[in-house]
């Protein structure tokens, strides 16, 4: 913080000495915007220039020693990179684009960040104020377009609005339940000069980011937990966003409760923790899904009962008392009725809950999870990660990455079978290690998100796991990796199909593989075209050594693994089925 303030002072001081010291310092809106970003501690942003945002780019040029701008090869890539950066670091990701098509290309990333509660500020240029509403060149109503997919958005039409609006943008993006904010700035506002001063936003009167926890609700929750015979915890990303990993661990251990996670909650508790019983949801683990309908108290923390988690709602945990810890009041009773709702930040509410919790063990109940795990291991996991038949599986690739990285890597996944397999089998020993597009399921997310994740955690290994389909949705971002030598490890699990859709076609559409067979290019050659070290393997004997070589490399590395073409992900709760109807095959 001190550094940032200092930087701002320095640049303003330089200005001052070069002008009449008595005259107030006038700077352009574009320059003011840069000062706002610096004041908010932004070091890196992702974007793409164009006419309506050129004054800002001109300032980015001047400030390039203080603020890094990464030119992604498509604006969608800029948003996903900003998301990856935000998710791994807990800071606000920043993306910038021009008006019209530049702005519309941000929409997927905005929607993704909105549904996955990722703090992001997007800045778009807009035609000059006089031209608004005239269908000017590259004018588009990005405020109207982005409204449903932003936590907040605002159009700045004069320079003097910039400091206050930008301060508010960052405050809103990161406070409470985080989310994306879009600020559209007309070109005149970037050019006009005004007297700049900056004050951080500390509150907005109509916005209560964090509800105050009610002690009576916490007591009621504690009573239910202390009296439960078969309690079960399902946590979500709320633990990570609330920085409540330690409190979760203490709760799980003190109360002796088996705990499972949603895909967005992955990595908040070590995979190897004895009470971590796995993932819930459509392709989650057998035990936690099945036993959701057998627990007597379901303690849901920082999760939102997405349909991929609950299956058929009317048969979801009907026998259980439901306790819902949540920061967003609109999530309470949205999908599942809460017998007790505890509103507030998870770190605070769990902190208040802990002293009320009695030391307990539920070994018999925990053993049922272990029995179910054994069934799942024998029928599925064994064959996924230690296959004996020919044809590489996605699971064994993930397992080798675990071994080679000592469970320490950040795993960034795209969307499809490889995503489910990676989330099922990747092992985590540190929070914020699973970066995936959970709510929107955006193919093309992983490659740019991995770039952002690496830049947000330079000291960590970042491995992107991508399908052959999704890879080609944002493949152009190899250019960023090439240009900036960003040492991410890219693993394409190539089954020559849009695997997840093909699996549904196999199971539910009598194997009519409509448009899911992929005719793929030579990915290794493409990577080599970007001067990225690249390998392709298709045999088990080469797997271990190659993964080790990849993980040991200090450079970007591309690995294509030819995996079996018609592998399926199990267990599976077919869409519309109950969690009790989870299929092992």
């Amino acid at each position, binding site marked *: 913080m001190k550094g940032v303030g200092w930087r701002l002072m320095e640049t303003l001081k330089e200005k001052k000495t070069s002008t009449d010291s008595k005259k107030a310092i006038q700077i352009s809106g574009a320059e003011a915007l840069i000062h706002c970003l610096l004041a908010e501690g932004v070091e890196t942003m992702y974007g793409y220039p164009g006419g309506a945002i050129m004054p800002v780019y001109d300032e980015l040029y001047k400030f390039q020693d203080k603020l890094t701008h990464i030119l992604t090869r498509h604006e969608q890539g800029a948003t996903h990179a900003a998301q990856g950066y935000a998710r791994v670091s807990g800071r606000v990701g920043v993306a910038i684009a021009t008006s019209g098509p530049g702005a519309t290309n941000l929409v997927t990333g905005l929607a993704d960040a909105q549904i996955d509660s990722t703090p992001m500020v997007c800045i778009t240029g807009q035609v000059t104020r006089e031209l608004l509403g005239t269908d000017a060149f590259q004018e588009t109503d990005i*405020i109207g377009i982005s409204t449903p997919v932003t*936590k907040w958005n605002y159009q700045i039409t004069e320079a003097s609005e910039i400091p206050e609006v930008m301060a508010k943008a960052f405050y*809103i993006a990161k406070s409470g339940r985080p989310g994306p904010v879009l600020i559209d700035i007309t070109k005149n506002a970037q050019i006009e000069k005004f007297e700049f001063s900056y004050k951080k936003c500390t509150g907005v009167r*109509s*916005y209560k980011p964090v509800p105050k926890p009610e002690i009576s609700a916490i007591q009621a929750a504690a009573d239910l937990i202390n009296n439960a015979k078969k309690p079960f915890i399902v946590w979500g990303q709320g633990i990570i966003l609330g920085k409540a990993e330690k409190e979760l661990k203490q709760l799980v251990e003190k109360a002796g409760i088996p705990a499972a996670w949603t895909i967005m909650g992955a990595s908040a508790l070590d995979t190897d923790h004895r009470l971590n019983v796995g993932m819930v949801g459509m392709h989650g683990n057998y035990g936690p899904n099945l036993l959701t309908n057998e627990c007597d108290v379901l303690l849901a923390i920082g999760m939102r009962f997405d349909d991929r988690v609950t299956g058929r709602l009317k048969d979801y945990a009907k026998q259980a008392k439901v306790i819902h810890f949540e920061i*967003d009041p*609109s999530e*309470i*009773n949205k999908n599942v009725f*809460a017998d007790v709702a505890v509103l507030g930040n998870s770190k605070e509410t769990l902190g208040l809950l802990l002293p009320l919790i009695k030391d307990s063990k539920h070994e018999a109940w925990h053993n049922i999870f272990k029995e179910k795990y054994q069934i799942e291991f024998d029928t599925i996991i064994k064959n996924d990660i230690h296959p004996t038949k020919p044809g590489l599986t996605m699971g064994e690739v993930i397992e080798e990455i675990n071994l080679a990285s000592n469970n320490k890597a950040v795993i960034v996944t795209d969307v499809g079978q490889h995503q489910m397999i990676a989330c099922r089998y990747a092992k985590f020993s540190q929070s914020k290690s699973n970066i995936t597009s959970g709510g929107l399921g955006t193919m093309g997310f992983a490659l740019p998100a991995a770039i952002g994740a690496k830049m947000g955690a330079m000291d960590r290994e970042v491995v992107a796991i991508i399908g052959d389909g999704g890879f080609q949705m944002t493949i152009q971002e190899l250019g960023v990796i090439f240009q900036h030598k960003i040492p991410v490890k890219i693993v394409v699990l190539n089954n020559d199909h849009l695997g997840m859709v093909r699996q549904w076609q196999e199971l539910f559409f009598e194997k009519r593989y409509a448009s899911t067979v992929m005719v793929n290019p030579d990915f290794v050659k493409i990577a080599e075209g970007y001067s990225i070290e690249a390998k392709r393997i298709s045999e088990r004997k080469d797997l271990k050594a190659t993964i080790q070589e990849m993980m040991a490399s200090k450079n970007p590395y591309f690995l294509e693994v030819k995996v079996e073409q018609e592998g399926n992900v199990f267990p599976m709760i077919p869409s519309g089925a109950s969690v009790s109807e989870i299929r092992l095959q």
Partner: protein
Amino acid sequence: MHKRKGKWLMENKWFTISVYSENNVGLLNRISGIFLKRHINIESLNVSKSEIDDVSKFTIVVNTTEKWVHNIVGQIEKQIEVIKAFYHTDDETIYQESALFKIASGLLFDERQIQNIIKDNNAQIVTVSRDFFVIAKSGRRSEVDEMYDQLKPYGIMQFVRSGRISVTKDVMQISAILKEF
């Protein structure tokens, strides 16, 4: 504040949603988008100032289930510029609509019955000109509809009805929320 298991009635009902908010250009779009996303029709919408300076009030009428109105109000309240949003059933509010009827002037003199309709319905004549006169009527939807049915046979040149406006029987405490800030 939160309902317990299974307590929601699943049949459609009329609900009045009241939204207290900052004055903001984009907010109407945000709010209407919440209905659009859920494919729920807005039956009427009124925006006005409220009892608090600089605070606007939206009054929105919908016909839906309590589950959905709860969901919608939660989403509305989540919007940054919204101070507070509530939903109420008809018996929890005092509500009115107003309507204007434009009628050919000749009828006022030729058809005695029209004057009786105006009187019986507690309506007012707002203006009279050579060609037409305008009747204003406020009241519940059913009362306005009744008057409409009575005037219809004589010929209505134009008709318009406003959105519902309503106040609640219980206290809203918006000022207290704002003071907390």
